[in-house]
């Protein structure tokens, strides 16, 4: 029995890789469709904050993730956009990550198609160009936005666009949101949120979600979507299930596999040591 366990512990890891592939691929082909209950309070916080904004208020949405973390964060951006346009809010999208410009264009492509067909570029939303220095942008949007963003991403002047009417800096805006896989959310909270008393919320990858617990407790972050679970929760709140919900559904079997492997390996190790 003992050498069987030893052989099991020394198993070729490519078998483990194969099992993971199967456990993830099966739910993609045949979804389990289990309900995603109990929404995180920090996700509810972001939902209530957007719900409470009067129509016409302006949301600054910073898309700061690249394809590397797209599956966790793209569904979050789409869910927030869908909710904001449903509440007739004005949205200003920008990015501080060079790798994100393509994803911002994908969002721009989807807004007229299925996210909010009735919204008009320039009247309801604007897309600002990439800027290389995050600290400079975060400080400048608190003073005079137009000193650093004079044109939109295609070079059209934005000062006389209808979406920018009455907007001079973050004090005239309702909420700031940064969706990122990097530490830019920490800088947004420090350089813009705290400094200009500007309510700020965010979306982050699951890896960095726990790092923001202190900001949520002090209220420096008004809400947070953490990883794909955050996206699924927000999709549940706005009642429009998409990639977030189907993603969480596919993860069911894989999560149980990880726990099973840890428990099994440790039991076998104890068995070898003491029996």
């Amino acid at each position, binding site marked *: 029995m003992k050498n069987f366990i030893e052989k099991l512990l020394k198993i070729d890891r490519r078998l483990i890789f194969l099992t993971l592939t199967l456990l993830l691929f099966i739910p993609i082909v045949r979804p389990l469709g289990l309900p995603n209950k109990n929404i995180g309070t920090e996700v509810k916080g972001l939902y209530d904050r957007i719900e409470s904004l009067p129509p016409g208020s302006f949301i600054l949405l910073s898309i700061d993730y690249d394809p590397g973390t797209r599956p966790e964060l793209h569904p979050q951006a789409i869910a927030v956009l869908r909710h904001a346009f449903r509440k007739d809010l004005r949205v200003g999208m920008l990015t501080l990550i*060079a790798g994100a410009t393509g994803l911002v264009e994908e969002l721009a492509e989807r807004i007229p198609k299925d996210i909010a067909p009735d919204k008009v570029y320039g009247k309801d939303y604007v897309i600002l160009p*990439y800027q290389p220095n995050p600290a400079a942008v975060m400080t400048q949007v608190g003073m005079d936005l137009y000193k650093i963003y004079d044109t939109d991403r295609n070079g059209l002047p934005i000062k006389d666009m209808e979406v920018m009417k009455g907007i001079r800096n973050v004090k005239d805006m309702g909420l700031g949101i940064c969706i990122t896989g990097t530490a830019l959310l920490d800088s947004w909270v420090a350089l813009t949120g705290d400094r200009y008393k500007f309510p700020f919320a965010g979306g982050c990858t*699951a890896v960095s979600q726990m790092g923001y617990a202190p900001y949520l407790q002090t209220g420096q972050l008004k809400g947070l979507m953490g990883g794909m679970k955050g996206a699924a929760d927000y999709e549940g709140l706005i009642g429009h299930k998409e990639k977030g919900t189907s993603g969480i559904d596919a993860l069911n079997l*894989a999560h149980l596999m990880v726990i099973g492997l840890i428990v099994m390996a440790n039991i076998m190790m104890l068995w070898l040591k003491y029996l």
Partner: protein
Amino acid sequence: MSETMMIFGGWVAAGLTIFLFSFLYKDNPFFKIAEHLFLGAGMGWVFQTVLFKTWIPKVWMPLTQAPYDFSVLIPALLGLSLVTQFFPKISWVSRYGFTFIMGYGSGLVIPLTISTDFLNQIGGTLTPFMVTSFAGNWLQLLNGSIIAVGFICVLFYFFFSVEHKGAVKKASTVGIYFLMLYFGAAFGNTVMGRFSLLYGRFDDLYKYSGGKYFYATHVILAVLVIYFIVDHFRTKKPAIEEEAA
């Protein structure tokens, strides 16, 4: 963008994805090609973004077009000075660019760190105690005191001026357990995060294996398997050494 280009794009995406995944079985030329393509493509993408969104609109245009603004020359020269780091003889010129970035960066970050990570965090630890009355707020008071005690104990763990004996030792052991809960929760979240990324790739591969893309994923996968079988018999090297990679 014609339909055929989109289908061809599907093939390219599925191919590159499978090439990168092939590293899990064994290091092979397909993986190496895809990996180096990634290094170059990543740098190429950032280069064209910076070129069209910063150099041209913010440096080239003000110097060559109507509203001339020559003050732009100063940051441009400071920026170019950075590149001299690659030429040992004049690498000291790059110091002007670096000191400008580091000076501005430090000056900007110090007061904000004091306010956001120092003052507000202490204030945040005290707010749960600011209840109007004890009745009905027991849970908030309990959680608030756990946070305060945990916070102090973790700080004791990172305290280096005093030998860890007696009370300091107990406090720092309690601090360790708070850190363990934090790391455990972070580990659990990392598992979900990485799996979500893998789900994203498999979802794409599933899309590209559809009829619309002429079963791109299946075809490329088959080609790779054949390559490994042929390679296996051709090289006839003992497999054990490969297994570890």
